[in-house]
């Protein structure tokens, strides 16, 4: 019996067209998310890390159907027996299995739902954005901002809205007095608390946290991270925590996925990833992060070379091969490595681990 997965994602793809030329024809595609498969277990925090342009934000938004995927399956809250059946059926080539999977997809695949059918799912899946400044309407008071989703989704009768909002504010560490203030009257950290209150107001099961503390100062970041942990415990939430900061990911996540140019290159329990990183890119990332302790300075500074390639024309084969120190000619530049389980629960997409 596998663990209960709140989300099962298979072969998710999102290509953005690049327009150019005189008539604005589509001349290329940015392969922002290019075949990502993963499961998110109920109650866990899955960290997604990677550098800018790796597709981590697009992945989060595609899962929530804020952006419609071009291909792939997203199963949300499927019953446990169906989850197991999906795991068996995915990848099978025979007609009978295909037909059965198709039936399941009609029922549970978010990618198959139209805009009206998706609405009931919206309240179960929420998002907190990076920049609380631009994700809150500057002309609305806190009360209005928080009342809107409650009324739209009919969470509480209208005469109880105010008391519900006060309850929410207290949950995120704000006060009743803040009710009639506007977003600009708050500090960055407080604004992020409002964003979090809005996300939890609909009693969701799953929240995508997209760089929720990147715009905040460290002393405030710690407050918000602690708050998020506490809410997860109290409200039994499942998080997908998107960040470029590996130390934040280590602090928050149970499992971590590393993305590079639209692909998931490594997925492992957090402690495992830090103690025994397998993919050369993960190793490079970990080595590049400065440690807040001068006695742990590296005696020899590693020469880092290269930069993240463009997702319009990613390198052939393994996308990391032009920067990789273990590059094997004829293999890495020809074949795309699949994501395979190398150790228990530790997946990696690298040819170093696929041979033999």
């Amino acid at each position: 019996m596998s663990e209960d997965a709140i989300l099962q994602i298979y072969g998710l793809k999102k290509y953005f067209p690049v327009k150019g030329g005189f008539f604005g024809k589509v001349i290329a595609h940015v392969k922002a998310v290019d075949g990502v498969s993963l499961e998110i277990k109920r109650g866990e925090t899955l960290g997604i890390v990677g550098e800018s342009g790796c597709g981590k934000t697009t992945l989060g938004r595609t899962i929530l159907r804020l952006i419609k995927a071009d291909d792939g399956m997203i199963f949300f809250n499927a019953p446990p027996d169906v989850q197991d059946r999906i795991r068996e059926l995915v990848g099978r080539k025979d007609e009978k299995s295909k037909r059965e999977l198709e039936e399941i997809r009609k029922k549970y695949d978010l990618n198959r739902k139209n805009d009206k059918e998706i609405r009931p799912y919206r309240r179960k899946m929420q998002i907190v954005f990076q920049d609380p400044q631009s994700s809150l309407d500057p002309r609305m008071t806190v009360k209005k901002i928080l009342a809107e989703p409650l009324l739209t989704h009919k969470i509480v009768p209208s005469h109880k809205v105010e008391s519900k909002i006060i309850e929410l504010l207290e949950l995120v560490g704000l006060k009743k007095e803040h009710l009639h203030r506007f977003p600009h009257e708050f500090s960055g950290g407080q604004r992020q608390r409002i964003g979090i209150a809005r996300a939890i107001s609909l009693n969701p099961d799953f929240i995508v946290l997209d760089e929720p503390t990147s715009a905040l100062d460290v002393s405030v970041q710690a407050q918000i991270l602690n708050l998020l942990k506490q809410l997860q415990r109290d409200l039994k939430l499942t998080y997908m925590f998107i960040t470029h900061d590996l130390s934040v990911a280590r602090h928050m996540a149970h499992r971590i996925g590393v993305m590079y140019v639209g692909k998931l290159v490594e997925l492992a329990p957090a402690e495992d990833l830090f103690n025994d990183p397998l993919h050369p890119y993960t190793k490079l990332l970990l080595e590049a992060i400065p440690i807040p302790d001068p006695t742990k300075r590296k005696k020899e500074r590693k020469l880092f070379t290269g930069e993240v390639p463009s997702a319009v024309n990613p390198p052939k084969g393994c996308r990391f091969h032009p920067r990789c120190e273990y590059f094997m000619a004829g293999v890495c530049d020809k074949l795309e490595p699949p994501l395979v389980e190398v150790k228990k629960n530790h997946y990696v997409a690298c040819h170093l681990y696929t041979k033999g």
Partner: protein
Amino acid sequence: MDDDILLKVEDLHTYFYTYEGVVKAVDGVSFYVKKGEVFGVVGETGCGKSVTALSIIGLIDEPGKIVSGKIIFQGKNLRELSEDEMRKIRGKGISMIFQEPMTALNPVYKIGDQILEIILLHKYGIEDIKKAPKDIKKKERKRVIDMLRLVRMPDPERAIDSYPHELSGGMRQRAMIAMMLAAEPSLLIADEPTTALDVTVQAQILNILLDMRDKLGISIILITHDLSVVADVCDRVAVMYAGNIVEMADVYTIFKHPVHPYTRGLMQAIPSIAEKKEELKYIKGSVPNLIYPPPGCRFHPRCEYAQDICKKEKPKLIEVEPGHYVACHFAKEFFEKEKESDKNE
């Protein structure tokens, strides 16, 4: 000992006169930078670290004004120089690189020409690149390529003829550094030079800065909000809070024995990749408004040890051990405690 010192800032006050009131962005800051050292200035948003840097290089504009204090660079008080003399210091004496290189590079000139312009100006006194003799331009083009190679620009022969928008963020920052170094300054001020960059690129840029220090012997003031970067590259560091320096020491001392409650709070608030902490400690509240800063010690409303004296009297920066300065009324007590807990470990 004083021969060692390249820059000395004494009791600097820089205020901004806005409609809402006077913003005391830098309010009594003193420090010095030695030759060949990397001096870190660390603090959160609005602590005055960038304004300190801009004051040194003389780029404070209306409505800002340096109200008082001395900035002594190579024996000269920069505040007494005329704008013409100051222009000569900028570039050859002190250079500055910024967080977002795109805003500092000229978008309509090729990278190579922008670097060449600086070499021509500082070496030959030629102000207009178009009037420069061809043979000098040809000769110096080689030097430009050398400069780009020094900052490890990939494919420098191609980069020299590129426009800024054709380069990635990391490459632009390299071009920027090359440009600043072309004037051969003795002090480089780097204001959040890696904040807009990815970690692997950040590591490359930090490497280059250290390289420049080792090869050219320049001093660097590194302004950052990131304590990990400080721990990684700085020799000495000043921690700023709300327009004041609250603690200053060499980097090993400050990370081993942080004394000021703010410094300690900051260090406990950062998650580390080296170890997992169950719960992060944090500093309650947020950074104060600098038009009406709290009286006395500016940190007192957020400080868990605050006493009556903290609300009334502004603490002076005192030396708790050689080279380790702290601005706190209880600095000596905290210092003794830190040392004590160290013995017990």
